[in-house]
């Protein structure tokens, strides 16, 4: 019944290729977070701008990002846009899809964090001669990022894991894509994917611990 023979050596021999894939995975996650954070700041300002159209754009974005499967979002980036003649590479599609997802979740995080900062902070900044933008940038934003820091870490972990969805749009250079390719080549399914899982785990664990370390350094108040 159970006559599978583990062949870890075969899988381990492919480790260098998988680690190259892990680098691509991290690249996608980092890029999607950096762009996602910038977009989320913008969308948060849209939401609070009091301008109907901008607020609606922000709300719609958040609703779709949070209430549809990430796979759908990535599919849309690749095949959806493809239907309109916009053909993105697998890398660009997965990056776009995850960035879209990140921006949506982070916007909600930022909005919540903003609510936790008393209005009097901006008021105090304004009374020192700051304009609205300056008060936001130098007084409100840094405090907001602190409150939103841990949720941001979670999203980063989520971004790493979401890269595995790239295989559905033909991505084959990231960790999951590479593993998939090796599997087709060697059929060491269990070993390869177990190894990939360990690498995923180590990456996300490093992010969580690293973030905690950064937090104690960055937020000494």
């Amino acid at each position, binding site marked *: 019944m159970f006559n599978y023979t583990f062949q870890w050596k075969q899988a381990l021999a492919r480790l260098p290729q998988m680690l190259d894939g892990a680098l691509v995975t991290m690249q996608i996650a980092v890029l999607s977070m950096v762009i996602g954070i910038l977009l989320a700041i913008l969308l948060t300002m849209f939401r609070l701008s009091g301008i109907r159209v901008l607020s609606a754009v922000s709300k719609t974005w958040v609703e779709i990002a949070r209430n549809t499967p990430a796979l759908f979002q990535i599919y849309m980036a690749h095949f959806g846009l493809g239907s309109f003649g916009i053909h993105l590479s697998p890398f660009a599609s997965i990056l776009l899809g995850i960035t879209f997802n990140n921006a949506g979740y982070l916007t909600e995080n930022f909005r919540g964090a903003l609510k936790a900062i008393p209005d009097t902070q901006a008021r105090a900044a304004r009374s020192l*001669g*700051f304009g609205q933008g300056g008060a936001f940038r130098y007084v409100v934003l840094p405090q907001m990022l602190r409150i939103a820091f841990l949720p941001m870490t979670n999203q980063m972990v989520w971004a790493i894991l979401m890269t595995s969805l790239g295989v559905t749009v033909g991505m084959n250079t990231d960790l999951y894509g590479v593993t998939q390719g090796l599997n087709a080549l060697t059929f060491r399914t269990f070993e390869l994917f177990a190894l990939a899982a360990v690498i995923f785990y180590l990456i996300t664990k490093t992010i969580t611990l690293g973030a905690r370390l950064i937090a104690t350094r960055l937020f000494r108040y």
Partner: protein
Amino acid sequence: MIEIENVRKSFGSLEVLKGIDLTVQKGEVVTIIGGSGSGKSTLLTCINGLEPIDSGRITVDGTEVHAKSTDLNKLRRKIGIVFQQFNAFPHLTVLENVMLAQVKVLKRPKAEAEAEAVKQLNHVGLGDKLKVYPSRLSGGQQQRMAIARALAMSPDYMLFDEVTSALDPQLVGEVLDTLRMLAREGMTMICVTHEMKFAREVSDRVAFFHKGVMAEIAPPDQLFGAPRDPELQKFLSATH
């Protein structure tokens, strides 16, 4: 000179300022007393344009505060304000709190801003707390930091909005001492306060607000010694 002419202001259907007239000369210290809801704090936030007014006029050194063409950010550099809540910026050290607006708003070089910040913080007795975050300060210390932060902008006028009201009683003295020192140094000040003894000591004139009206204004000896307005008489006998 701050000139307030027939200023009216409502929040919804509630009229909080019902035609206030007040002129404050350079170097003068005016305190405003009165019960809560009398409009005294609102007047301060109207003076630096944080609140719009419904009618009337407020001018600071000839610039009309609420005129459309007025650059409020620029005007506010002239007018320091300190609030009841201390509003320390929690993410910055004491020194950085006092430097921030100098560097970003006034565009002072960092070294100059730091020297000014150190000077002002020494002035209010916080010279040994430069590298500390506000969360480590007492309420009185945070409030003195807020005063230093406003003073570092080299304002011509200072507005104090019940700056001791949120403090534990034993911390009130240190903040009032700071205000006394400023008054002695000739700073033009408008203080909204509940501290009658303080008002009596430092003021050139004391104004009594009641239900959005300035019911009486006089030098402190006269206002406290021989109050004419019946509401003021009631107010003083209740607070003594």
